[in-house]
């Protein structure tokens, strides 16, 4: 699929131009706004004292929004409770997350099937025997890390629900399309089929074929699944309300799982040539003690890079959008919204593109890594 027409489009370039112009204009406005709010703060000592605390709160709020959660917050005090499933030392325990209210300060003991737990900052821990000085059952070590052990949490969290929704959508859409292909065999695509066909062809012709050569066919299902899974979840993450809003592809556990799949496929499909490159690299023999460990580390850095790239890109986008919105609350002025909201809109549009690009990059790098693993021996380089 040739994408150049998108970049050449007059309409899009004019939009981008306007956006850039607008961002400059609004930036100068922003600095003025900032200065005036600074001045107003200095007049009131109480407000000035409250400011650093507020900023800390906001970074917490942002991290809270990006992190996973045991409930799906809709608005105000309305949140959908989700089932909590814990594998404790006394066996499996499950309950709805709102069973014990919304206290996550670690000050209450939860009695569950013979075991006691404490809920602190969105996580379940085994409590300490006595309350500590701050009234919680949580203890810290010298570095300030929590030392309480915790049960294995396999709850249906917000991210898991989002995951299941996206999987359901993907199943419905693509099985439906497959049926359309069977029903309209040899005919031109129609409806949803014609929207997604170019993308399927894009994955095949621009990702699978160049990287995998003539053996691309066997890896098409994996590449297509990864591409559409990542893309749909990137897009769903950008939707600020249900069923979107869960930061699934910006969660390192999910990107780790995806990278691990690519790693397993690469390792399992690695041929003699691939392992030959790793274990007997083309260097003088006395460099082997240096090169072999480097090559072996290289096997792992590739999937780790995959994992971090997707996680960091999506998380960064979310943090950026949330930070821009938070400007309104940091500067405590409704007029900041005039700048922040267009900025958020601008970044959101970029994030739409990033969502596609990251899905594309994840897929093409997976294809590349698999491609190097199945590459036949050819001219030395």
């Amino acid at each position: 699929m040739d994408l150049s027409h998108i970049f050449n489009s007059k309409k899009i370039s004019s939009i981008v131009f306007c956006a850039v112009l607008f961002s400059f204009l609004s930036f100068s406005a922003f600095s003025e706004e900032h200065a005036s709010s600074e001045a107003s703060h200095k007049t009131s000592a109480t407000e000035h004292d409250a400011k650093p605390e507020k900023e800390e709160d906001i970074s917490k709020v942002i991290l809270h929004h990006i992190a996973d959660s045991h409930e799906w917050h809709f608005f105000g005090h309305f949140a959908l409770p989700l089932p909590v499933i814990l594998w404790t030392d006394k066996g499996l325990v499950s309950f709805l997350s709102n069973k014990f209210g919304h206290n996550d300060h670690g000050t209450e003991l939860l009695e569950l099937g013979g075991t006691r737990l404490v809920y602190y900052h969105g996580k379940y821990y085994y409590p300490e025997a006595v309350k500590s000085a701050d009234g919680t059952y949580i203890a810290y070590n010298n570095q300030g890390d929590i030392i309480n052990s915790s049960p294995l949490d396999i709850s249906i969290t917000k991210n898991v629900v989002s995951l299941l929704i996206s999987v359901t959508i993907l199943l419905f859409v693509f099985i439906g399309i497959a049926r359309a292909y069977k029903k309209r065999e040899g005919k031109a695509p129609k409806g949803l089929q014609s929207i997604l066909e170019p993308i399927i062809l894009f994955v095949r012709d621009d990702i699978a074929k160049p990287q995998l050569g003539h053996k691309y066919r066997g890896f098409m299902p994996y590449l297509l699944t990864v591409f559409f899974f990542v893309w749909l979840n990137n897009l769903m993450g950008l939707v600020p309300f249900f069923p979107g809003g869960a930061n699934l592809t910006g969660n390192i556990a999910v990107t780790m799982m995806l990278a691990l799949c690519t790693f397993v496929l690469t390792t399992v499909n690695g041929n003699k040539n691939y392992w030959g490159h790793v274990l007997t690299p083309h260097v003088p023999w006395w460099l082997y003690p240096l090169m072999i460990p480097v090559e072996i580390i290289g096997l792992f850095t590739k999937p780790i890079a995959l994992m971090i790239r997707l996680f960091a890109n999506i998380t960064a986008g979310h943090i950026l959008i949330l930070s821009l919105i938070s400007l309104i609350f940091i500067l405590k002025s409704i007029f900041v919204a005039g700048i922040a909201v267009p900025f958020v809109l601008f970044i959101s549009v970029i994030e739409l593109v990033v969502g596609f690009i990251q899905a594309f990059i994840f897929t093409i790098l997976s294809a590349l890594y698999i491609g190097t693993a199945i590459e036949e021996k050819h001219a030395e380089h």
Partner: protein
Amino acid sequence: MTLLALNPLVSPDPGLFIWSTFAFLILFFILSKYAWKPIVKALDEREHSIEDALSKAELAKAEMAKLISENEDLLKEARLERDHILREAKEIKDQIINDAKEQAKAEGTKLIEKAKDEITNQKFAAMAEIKNQVSSLSIAIAEKVLRKQLEDQDKQQALVNDLLKEVKLN
């Protein structure tokens, strides 16, 4: 682990990891079997059929062009052939006419020649006949004259005398 535990963002949550692995693998297996396989197959088949149709169209076009050029060649050849035949026919006609003329001329001259010969022959024959006739007539006349003349002696004598005189005169 302490490095990863620094920030909850970069510490993978085992629960989500387990769930996403399950969900992704199930998605992968179901989609590969019921979606990707038929879709990729259908796309390949459609591409093949389009390619086939295109190459067939190309072939037909080439065939058509070939036929047209062949037809043109044939037409040209036929035209040449016709011209050739016409020219030949004309030549033959001219030849035949010339031949006929010449033959007629030759025949005519021959006939005239023959007629001339015949005429000459006839003339000679007629001349001979006339000569014979004249000679026999003259002889008969002479005989008759002589008979008459020689019926009496005197006359015979006179004749002889005459003849003799004539001889003398010679």
